[in-house]
């Protein structure tokens, strides 16, 4: 782990994190304060919640009559759960999956890189499934996908893409509480 010269207030654009966010998450104080979040059970729960929020949001996007899925359908409000579930997921793994090289050591770099590799492979599967669903919907004469649903679906895919590496790290329990 290299020691950066100036990281106070630095924002890593490629990774989408603040230096203070990563260094704070790596501290022993963070492990003491948020021990309950770092447990394998909490990490897997965060993964399950994220997936549930995506599925329900996607259902709301197709089912809801209003704009951006905030229609009469109850399921469309699940999209509000995508952001906190994403933040919980990142916090449960100490932001490892999104950390830049200079703020983490070689062991964490290996964990992060391996997670991105697996996430990329899972993403190809997710894209195939989504494509199949869209084709199935378009072939159906009862349901149509309008522009708003497409935008909403893109919003969900954004979180899917951003969350997958964190989900891999969380599910495998590679980053846990202090032992």
């Amino acid at each position, binding site marked *: 782990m290299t020691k950066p010269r100036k990281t106070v207030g630095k924002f890593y654009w490629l990774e989408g994190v603040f230096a203070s966010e990563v260094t704070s998450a790596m501290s022993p104080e963070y492990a003491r304060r948020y021990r309950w979040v770092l447990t394998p059970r909490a990490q897997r729960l965060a993964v399950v919640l994220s997936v549930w929020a995506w599925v329900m949001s996607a259902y709301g996007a197709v089912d809801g009559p209003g704009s951006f899925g905030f229609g009469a359908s109850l399921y469309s409000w699940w999209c509000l759960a995508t952001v906190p579930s994403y933040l919980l997921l990142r916090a449960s793994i100490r932001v490892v999956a999104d950390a830049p090289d200079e703020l983490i*050591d*070689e062991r964490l770099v290996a964990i992060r890189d391996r997670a991105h590799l697996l996430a990329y492979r899972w993403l190809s599967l997710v894209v195939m499934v989504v494509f199949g669903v869209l084709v199935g919907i378009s072939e159906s004469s009862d349901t149509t996908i309008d522009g708003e649903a497409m935008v909403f679906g893109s919003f969900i895919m954004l979180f899917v893409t951003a969350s997958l590496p964190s989900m*891999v790290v969380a599910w*495998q329990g590679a980053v846990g509480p*202090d*032992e």
Partner: protein
Amino acid sequence: MLRRVGRKPKTDTPVHNRLEAVREARGMTRADLADAAGVHYQTIGYIERGEYSPSLSLALTLARVLRTDIHDIFSLAPFTKRRDQAR
């Protein structure tokens, strides 16, 4: 069963270490050693438990920080009591 990333070294040849013994002999905590070596404090724990094999550069850095030879800390053969005492 899902394989845990970073929990076990991905090598067929196990690397034995007595990092904890040497560290304690120097009166250092894991946090002290981690700060001196420039790694996360949990990484020291993983190395000591044999769940992570450090890179050559990190192993040499740890040896330098602990002011000892790298072979006093890491070995391909298990450390025995006699070898321990010899050091």
